[in-house]
């Protein structure tokens, strides 16, 4: 909290905070309003006499119904969920083990290897999809969920490894040494002591990995083609934008429904998540 006069608190704290929250939440609000706005209102010109951009008096579910009846939206949700979950689990498994190894096992070039892993995360996906497309084609994985489940870890594992490495380094090494004197092997010390203590870190990398794969666009666009294989981001944009016609209502309804699972995941683990990112381990 900022100390001092009332005006200081407003100028340096309240007003910037309100502006910030407004900027963050307004697109979301716009999405909700558009979802429930009937087509007749949506395509009204801005200078029409009854133009009401921020509110609607005739809310409708027609766009949401359209999504489920006229498109494969339910299928896309399932696809996205499946792909995001499996690739998150794979990435977490590898990331936790690799992060532990890089943080705790003193092997030659551990530092260099850590940096190398991080650098792979920096290669933009917009470049990487070209060679990956070739690999996917050679393995005949195109247009299957496995095309994404196996490619998402290429950027999720470096990310999870890096985050977990930092988290493991913050755990006092005495905990593990004590466990090993107490009779645990290195593996048991990791399973019974280090991993339970690292749960906040594991949860936060899991949540971020899940969000990244849920929202991923380029690989999904390139590797999937048939409508019933698509993920939400690709399905919504490819089926609801036809040429230069934007079906704003269903488009926004799709975006809204597509963001709900991620919001639920975040709100469930928000406490652990914050602890994970700030890395607070108390002995």
């Amino acid at each position, binding site marked *: 909290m900022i100390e001092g006069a009332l005006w200081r608190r407003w100028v340096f704290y309240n007003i910037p905070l309100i502006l910030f929250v407004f900027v963050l939440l307004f697109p979301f609000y716009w999405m909700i309003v558009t979802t429930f706005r009937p087509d007749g209102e949506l395509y009204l010109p801005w200078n029409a006499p009854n133009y009401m951009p921020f509110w609607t008096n005739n809310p409708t579910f027609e766009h949401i119904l359209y999504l489920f009846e006229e498109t494969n939206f339910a299928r896309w949700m399932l696809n996205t969920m499946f792909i995001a979950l499996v690739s998150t689990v794979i990435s977490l498994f590898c990331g936790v083990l690799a992060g532990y190894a890089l943080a705790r096992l003193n092997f030659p070039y551990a530092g260099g290897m850590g940096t190398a892993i991080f650098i792979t995360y920096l290669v933009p996906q917009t470049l990487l999809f070209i060679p990956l497309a070739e690999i996917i084609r050679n393995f005949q994985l195109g247009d299957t969920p496995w095309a994404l489940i196996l490619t998402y870890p290429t950027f999720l594992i470096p990310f999870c490894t890096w985050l977990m490495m930092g988290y493991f380094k913050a755990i006092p090494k005495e905990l593990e040494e004590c*466990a090993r*004197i107490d009779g645990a092997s290195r593996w048991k010390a990791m399973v*019974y002591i280090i991993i339970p203590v690292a749960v906040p870190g594991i949860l936060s990398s899991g949540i971020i990995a899940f969000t990244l794969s849920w929202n991923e666009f380029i690989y999904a666009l390139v590797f999937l083609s048939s409508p019933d294989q698509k993920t939400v981001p690709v399905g919504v944009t490819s089926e609801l934008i036809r040429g230069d016609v934007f079906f704003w209502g269903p488009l926004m309804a799709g975006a809204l429904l597509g963001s709900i699972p991620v919001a639920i995941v975040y709100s469930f683990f928000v406490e652990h998540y914050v602890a994970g990112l700030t890395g607070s381990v108390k002995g």
Partner: protein
Amino acid sequence: MAEVSLHKLNKKFDTTHVVKDVDLQIRDKEFMVFVGPSGCGKTTTLRMIAGLEAITTGEIRIDDRVVNEVPPMDRDIAMVFQNYALYPHMSVASNLAFGLKMRKFEKAEIEKRINNAASILGIESLLQRKPRQLSGGQRQRVALGRAIVRDPKVFLFDEPLSNLDAKLRVQMRVELKKLHERLAVTSVYVTHDQVEAMTLGDRVVVMKDGVVQQVGEPLELYNTPANRFVAGFIGSPAMNFADVTLVENGGKPVAEAPGLRIGVPGELATRARAKIGRKATLGIRPEDIHLATAADAPEYCFEAVVEVVEQLGSEILLDMRVGSAVMVASVEPTLRVRAHDKLKLALKPERLHLFDAESEASI
């Protein structure tokens, strides 16, 4: 029954040589304290005994078994860490049980041992709490309990009291001593606090720069320090030192410095005679200096100017200038003395120490 012996123990980290040729026999049931300034290699030595640090060269035996390559879990030791290292996600009871579970003890036996350790340490009421709900002193007890339940051959302590506040530290020190008397387990204790070393140790190892300076019972270190470092490290307030030259006066060796002329008594004189004409360091503890009376021989008397008077209640510490040297004396609390007073003081001749100026070894 457990003896620990270190034989020509060395540890190098890359290019720094942190433990040099340490030879030590720790007897069964002995409480051995390693003391020294930070970075002297005492903790590294302890960690090598624990098996947490690889040994560069040399040998460690527990009883007659060489344990160089034995992993920590198989050495039958327990260790108490400076930051307690309690498992934060487990209750106190689970913390105590962990080592036993790992060793596949029967449930009933685990329970019995936990209750026994808890009653020894007075933590019965805390068993269901998590470590974060405990105070510093309580955490310390739990950490001790975790070592006790294991009933190991050797206890290792790595500065276990240094995270406690001063009052609690004194209290836990007494408890540790009682605990050792009760359990009679061979213990190795690392500290940088010479008071802890003196009060706890059956014997004390003083280390500096990876080298053992002296091993002995606390009073032995206090009365007959092997060199200047041990003399200055053990005892509080620290021993006074003055650079002197050994000269001969009427057939007797005398330690001489500007403003200071002290006769070298008895046996020390015999040893000092060989060093006549050489530089040396005179050492005298503050508590061995007193106001000169008629009973004091003039060759053990000197004059000093008081610079600061520290009234401690039970004693007065006088910071004084003696010639070119600065000395501290501990005198009777009833003495009326003020800064800038000139005093005539005397030292107890049998408590005088002399150290070689070059090797710093005791003469």
